[in-house]
């Protein structure tokens, strides 16, 4: 079966904040309305709605259902939800459009990351018998991975600080970003460890945020956007949940996903990598074979704004916007999930 041509034709993001008092509906509604206005379509034009969020963050089962109020369920709509990052919701929407059942989909995600101890909440995803009872936070697990990489010489603390310095600098150009800075690499290296061998700037900034994108097929996409970001390859791979059985110094699932998505077929102008820790960006670059000519995370990436369950879809939005603007022709968007880069979704998009 020939695949349909599907593109991102519009995106919208809410600026990051912390300790937000808004409900998911209150933050999603204006973003979705803004997106519909930008693309120039109505709710009735959307054939499929797909939402990514995490009930553990609000502490309520099925709390995601209330978000339907932000999209309106009358007249009846076709919608779905993933208990995952919005990037995975985008993957589902892409599959839905591939079936031919619908032509236009709206994907959205939200995370009120700062209303609880996100580091501990996320570690509930780990093995419920062997790992979760010990209550290791995600920072601690990432720190174990970072140490292994440092010991093996795969990364250096200086390279990690360089990733942080570049991301914090680039954040000045991004209205969505939260953490910004102009520190030199030396200044960052002089900071104390928070989770040795990680320093505060090696870890992503938890923020509250939400975003949304519109996907459309073929000529509809060409009508809705001047320069759609065409999805040329998309793939999702998962490493074993058994932490000790994984290689700490490479990301095999990211490597496979990148290969299947066709990353190496041509040069990549911009790569938006969802790397919540500095050493993970370096691991991802190695796994995907990205060269020096690729501009990594011009948005500042997840280090400067990491809304849980929305940070992956934010990478898709940022990468697509660079295609819309004509500043890039071939871009990569990536989303990770789980501890130590357990899951990796890689997507290649191109302008025409």
């Amino acid at each position, binding site marked *: 079966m020939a695949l349909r041509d599907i593109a991102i034709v519009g995106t919208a993001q809410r600026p990051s904040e912390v300790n937000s008092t808004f409900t998911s509906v209150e933050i999603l509604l204006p973003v979705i309305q803004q997106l519909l206005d930008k693309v120039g379509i109505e709710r009735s034009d959307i054939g499929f709605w797909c939402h990514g969020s995490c009930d553990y963050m609000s*502490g309520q089962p099925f709390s995601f259902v209330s978000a339907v109020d932000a999209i309106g369920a009358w007249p009846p709509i076709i919608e779905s939800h993933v208990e995952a990052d919005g990037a995975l919701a985008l993957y589902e929407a892409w599959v839905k459009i591939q079936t031919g059942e619908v032509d236009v989909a709206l994907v959205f995600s939200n995370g009120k990351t700062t209303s609880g*101890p996100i580091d*501990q909440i996320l570690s509930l995803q780990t093995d419920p*018998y*062997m*790992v979760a*009872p*010990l*209550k*290791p*936070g995600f920072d*601690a*697990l990432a*720190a*174990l*991975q*970072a*140490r*292994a990489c440092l*010991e093996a010489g795969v990364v250096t603390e200086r390279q990690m600080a360089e990733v942080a310095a570049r991301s914090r600098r680039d954040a000045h150009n991004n209205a969505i970003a939260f953490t910004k800075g102009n520190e030199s690499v030396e200044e960052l290296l002089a900071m104390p*460890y*928070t*989770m*040795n*061998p*990680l320093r505060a700037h090696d870890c992503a900034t938890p923020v509250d945020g939400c975003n949304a994108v519109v996907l459309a097929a073929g000529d509809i996409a060409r009508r809705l956007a001047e320069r759609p970001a065409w999805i040329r390859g998309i793939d999702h791979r998962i490493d*074993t949940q*058994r*932490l*000790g*059985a994984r290689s*700490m110094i490479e990301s095999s699932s990211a490597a496979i996903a990148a290969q299947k998505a066709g990353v190496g077929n041509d040069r990549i102008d911009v790569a938006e990598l969802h790397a919540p820790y500095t050493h993970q960006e370096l691991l991802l670059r190695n796994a995907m074979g990205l060269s020096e000519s690729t501009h990594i995370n011009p948005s500042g990436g997840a280090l400067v704004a990491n809304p849980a369950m929305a940070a992956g879809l934010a990478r898709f939005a940022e990468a697509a916007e660079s295609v819309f603007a004509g500043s890039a022709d071939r871009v990569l968007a990536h989303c990770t999930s789980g501890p130590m880069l357990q899951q990796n979704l890689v997507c290649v998009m191109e302008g025409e």
Partner: protein
Amino acid sequence: MRLNKQTTRWRDKKLVVSGTTSHARVGDVFVAPLEVAYPYKRTVGTLLSRFFTSLSECRLEGTRGSDGRVYFPPAEFDPLTGEQLSEWVSLSDTGTVTTWAWQSTPVEGQPLAHPFAWALITIDGADVPMLHAVDAGSPENIAVGTKVKVRWAEDRPGGVTDIACFDIMGGAS
């Protein structure tokens, strides 16, 4: 307001399926506390049953995979072939740190209340490391390659926390 008979029957039915243990009837009113919990009991299956029993008896047992590698904690299914694993291997209570991180401010519920090291530890005789805590005292006392020994918890109901933590062999220097 008096409840009619039908409502009372419905309410009694709810009482039977309730997962809470401290519910009660006060007069005509059913009272139950709001417990944010997962009040279900479940069996853990053949592999974890044997594993948790061995831990409660202060023994370490792993399983051997199709490639000959020994997993501790034991793997129920071969990570390479997916086949059920059945060959058990007895292990000593010592091991080697393969990577570590320093938790300077412990969170409630973690293995130790004072600063400690998280580590992946390969138990002697096993090939795949496990996650646990090392009571190292200070980050200067631990490194990749440090030899550690199980400190058993006094109370061992059967679970990974039957291992209280690991101690550095020869004592933290």
